[in-house]
């Protein structure tokens, strides 16, 4: 029989800190901690005594707190001791969570020791010595999922919480961890089962008192559920941006003030600014958060025909960013015709949304407007912002426009409505949506229900895979709850 293992890991980052937490999970967690923190730890060799491993000095009176109680929920203080040498490693606070009421569903112990480079590492190594195995990345959460403590979406939320760098993602992850997304998808799946039960009633019980649910009603209900899934699916492109940040590229002719704007938006001097056109050769990237939403700002080389090799390479780099960008700030000085640049960007930069930024507002004459840009008509309906990196004029407006353009969908979504933050979620919801549409269309086109339910079942499967739920005989359960059946 393979011995089930107990995993150990440092749960906090290594380095200087007041506290560090070492976590264990598995059947041996309690006994290992019992041996790590013996009730009567051997005495500490005197300071300046023989190095570790060479104990031999006379034992001083035993001072430490006597006992660790892994089974009491109350945290207990103890001494962690090196199992080989008997040397004390650190004073630790032991908190035990017996299975199944723990994060992983197994026996879990958390040891709070002193932070820093050594204590936590020594405690971990002592536990490995006692038979623990170093946990792989994410293994605690994986065990929690395998033991049914979290569903898949919650497990992903844990990852989003740990890795997320924006307040917006954090908020959504907390919501998902509370089963906000799981509940909603589970409800849709439940409703799909209800639809299937109605059809099954029609097929399997043709002689009952209650007439079958009319197909028109089933079609109407399917449409309602499609709407729900569509609303969820619509949050996906922006939701995924919450993790990495939306890519916003500053582009335009050389010396149009891109780097100044870049610095102004960041609030620090990151890019070198000179009056010499073509100063920026490479692309510069920085991450900012506005209103809790993450952006990756990229300053690029000015777009022009250049003979110079380094500048040419810089321009190529710029284009590589431009084709992937969520938004492009086309920076053009007041008075310069943006049309040629607009045309090229529209042709080459894919899905990105364009904002026309009229730079160097402080240099224009008071009250004047740039000759190209008298109104929205002139820019073809593009948002246009006059700004001055120097005075800060227009910066707030620009940020607001960017937020609206890139995160408009999810900012408009009510906080209690879930947002899909991962590709897996987006694909699952999309699959369910397409199957549900196929089901509804099949019914509308007169495909017999016994055949059309094939689509319904695929939609259910897509949601089950998203949730990590295992189907049981739920259709029949629904059926017997819904209808009085049987002779």
């Amino acid at each position, binding site marked *: *029989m*393979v011995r*089930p*293992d107990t995993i150990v890991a440092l749960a906090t980052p290594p380095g200087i800190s007041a506290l560090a937490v070492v976590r264990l999970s598995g059947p041996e967690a309690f006994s290992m901690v019992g041996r790590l923190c013996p009730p009567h730890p051997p005495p500490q060799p005197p300071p300046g005594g023989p190095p570790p491993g060479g104990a031999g000095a006379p034992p001083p009176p035993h001072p430490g707190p006597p006992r660790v109680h892994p089974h009491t929920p109350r945290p207990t203080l103890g001494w962690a001791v090196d199992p080989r040498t008997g040397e004390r490693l650190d004073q630790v606070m032991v908190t035990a969570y017996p299975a199944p009421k723990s994060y992983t*569903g197994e026996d879990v112990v958390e040891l709070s020791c002193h932070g820093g480079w050594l204590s936590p590492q020594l405690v971990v190594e002592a536990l490995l010595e006692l038979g623990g195995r170093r946990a792989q990345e994410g293994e605690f959460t994986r065990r929690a*999922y*395998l*033991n*049914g403590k979290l569903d898949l979406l919650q497990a992903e939320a844990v990852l989003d919480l740990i890795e997320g760098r924006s307040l917006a993602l954090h908020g959504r992850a907390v919501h998902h961890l509370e089963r906000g997304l799981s509940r909603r998808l589970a409800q849709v799946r439940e409703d799909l089962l209800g639809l*299937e039960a109605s059809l*099954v009633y*029609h*097929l*399997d*019980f*043709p*002689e*009952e*008192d*209650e007439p079958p649910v009319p197909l028109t009603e089933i079609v109407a209900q399917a449409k309602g559920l499609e709407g729900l899934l569509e609303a969820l699916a619509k949050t996906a492109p922006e939701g995924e941006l919450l993790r990495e940040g939306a890519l916003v590229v500053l582009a335009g002719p050389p010396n149009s003030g891109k780097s100044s704007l870049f610095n102004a938006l960041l609030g620090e001097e990151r890019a070198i600014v000179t009056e010499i056109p073509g100063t920026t050769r490479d692309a510069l990237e920085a991450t900012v958060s506005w209103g809790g939403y993450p952006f990756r700002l990229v300053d690029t080389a000015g777009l022009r025909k250049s003979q110079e090799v380094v500048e040419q390479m810089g321009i190529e780099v710029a284009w590589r960013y431009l084709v992937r960008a969520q938004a492009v700030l086309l920076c053009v000085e007041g008075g310069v015709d943006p049309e040629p640049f607009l045309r090229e960007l529209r042709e080459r930069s894919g899905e990105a949304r364009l904002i026309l930024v009229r730079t160097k507002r402080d240099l224009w004459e008071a009250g004047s407007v740039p000759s190209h840009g008298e109104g929205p008509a002139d820019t073809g309906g593009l948002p246009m912002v006059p700004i001055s990196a120097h005075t800060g004029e227009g910066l707030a407006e620009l940020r607001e426009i960017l937020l609206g353009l890139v995160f408009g969908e999810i900012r408009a979504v009510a906080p209690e409505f879930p947002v899909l933050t991962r590709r897996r979620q987006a694909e699952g919801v999309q699959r369910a949506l397409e199957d549900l549409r196929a089901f509804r269309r099949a019914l509308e086109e*007169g*495909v*017999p*229900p*016994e*055949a059309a339910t*094939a689509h319904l*079942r695929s939609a259910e499967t897509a949601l089950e*895979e998203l949730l*990590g*739920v*295992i*189907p*049981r*005989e739920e*259709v*029949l359960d629904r*059926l*017997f709850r819904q209808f*009085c*059946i*049987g*002779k």
Partner: protein
Amino acid sequence: MRRRYEVVVIGGGHAGVEAAAAAARLGCSTLLVTPDLSRLGQLSCNPAVGGVAKGIVAREVDALGGIMGVATDASRLHFRMLNRSKGPAVWGPRAQCDRGLYPRAVRKALEALPNLDFFQGMASGLRLEKGEGFEVEVRGGVSFEARSLVVATGTFLRGKIHVGAEDGIPAGRAGEPPAVELAEALQAWGLEMGRFKTGTPPRVDGRTVDFGKLAVQPGDPEDFRFSHYARVELPDQRPCWVTWAGEALKKLVAENLHRSALYGGAISGRGPRYCPSIEDKIVRFPDVPRHQVFLEPEGLETEELYVNGLSTSLPADVQQAFLRTLPGLEECRMTKAGYAIEYDYFPPHQLHPTLEVKLIPGLFFAGQINGTTGYEEAAGQGVVAGVNAALRVQGRPPWVLGREQAYIGVLIDDLVTKGVDEPYRLFTSRAEFRLLLRQDNALQRLGPMAEELGLLTRAQTEVLRERVSTLEGVRRWFQGTTFTPPQVNPLLEQAGGQPIQEPARAMELLKRPGVRAEALARIGEAPFPPGQAGDALVAVEVEVKYRGYVERELERVQTLREQAGFSLEPDLPYRDFRTLSFEAREKLARVRPMNLAQAARIPGVSPADLQNLLMEVRRWRRQRLVGAGTSGKQEEG
């Protein structure tokens, strides 16, 4: 009287008779032991065979050379094709049968089998023989030896009948003693047991019913046969009648609920939700104003009627009183009280898909003993158990029906994979290949298999060949026949569609909703052999009308077969497979699936678990190769 048989079958209900017939057909010396030989294939509850899904099973049993189809044809009093208004994939043929004619037809069919013997008596003891086989003791000091044993005892194991809340009466069926020693003998072998209940409604004297107040439900006039191979003479049809139970009955039941065995606490076993007692209906759906009640003829030569819809465990006086609240039954006299019956069953995860008991090689279970209900479900299991009991004696490889091959396959796979928590009945919704498993193609699906096993007589094989060539002929006719507008337009307009302007191919016209293959064949004066083309016409219509969806199912069959190709050793250490969820490990260890496809169907095993299972099994096999000799026992699956 012989003492030694290759196969002994205990029980003469629908499972027992099919098991005995199948074993005998495969050439085994077979004995059927039952307490009453005059009740072989007794219709102990509703005298009806078939229905949605169940009708398909009845035809599958017939395609496999079984008894049920012929006996139904020979005794049917009333026939309907349920779901006729829906697609042909879910049509369900159902017949009300003459309760007396059916067992007679069964006995006649069984007595025609050369290898089959009968003995009337109550099996009372079982012993494992040293080496191989069983000794079956029958009350009265007789015993038989069997190499394979099929137990198909229905509701008889420690059966107990309840009418009212008093202590129940030990009985296997009304008026018949239960099998207690047999239950004890099986339990002594270490098998896990459970307890279920089911019920039956009262019967009334038709001479006391005012039919003028009832809605009549005549049978469908068509010449439908359950049997593919035999064409017996059909009795004349008699109508069924419909009435309803309203407020007065609801009130009576509610007032007397405490006197019912179900609600008075006398019954502990779990009953089927789809076959609820009238007590259940009224308690669970108090707002439903009325419940349909069907009055069904019990036989050609009796006026007794079966009151379908009023299954109950209330005392007889309450039953008589509530019957008189039904329109048309105000003056009725009850002839038999309804009752509930509790009985032992053996949770079927203890079985292989051959229906052999995992713990006891050579012992097979079929029918209600496995936690199912229904004649058809029992009969289907009987065939599988009987065939495998015989194959085992003959040293031939076991025979397992897949979910994509038959409803019987769905049934048995559900039983052994998922277990049961209420008496199990088939529904079309239990089958994932609903469009492939139809009543019209049962012979195409299972006939060749039956022939290969040796279940068919030479004459039956002939019929099989004819039917296959008929289907090809029908297909060719639809591809090659063209209709002119005047020929076909009246039919199209009748079906609610647009008339045609140019001549059109029959195959094209058949695509239209509401246009039936049978109607096109009629107006096109197709030259098919009479009485043989019915199934083929439906099959061709299905191929056309469900195009795309049938292919979709076939693709999924392919995936299933691929998964089924990855077999799982019977001794896998599932509990050590730590990359699987806790629940999956427990369930896999309990079921011990034969292959990956079966593992996938175990409730609690997720797609992620399956992927990890694949990896764990590969790792386990590598380790076993490396450390050969250190691994545990290897059981024979």
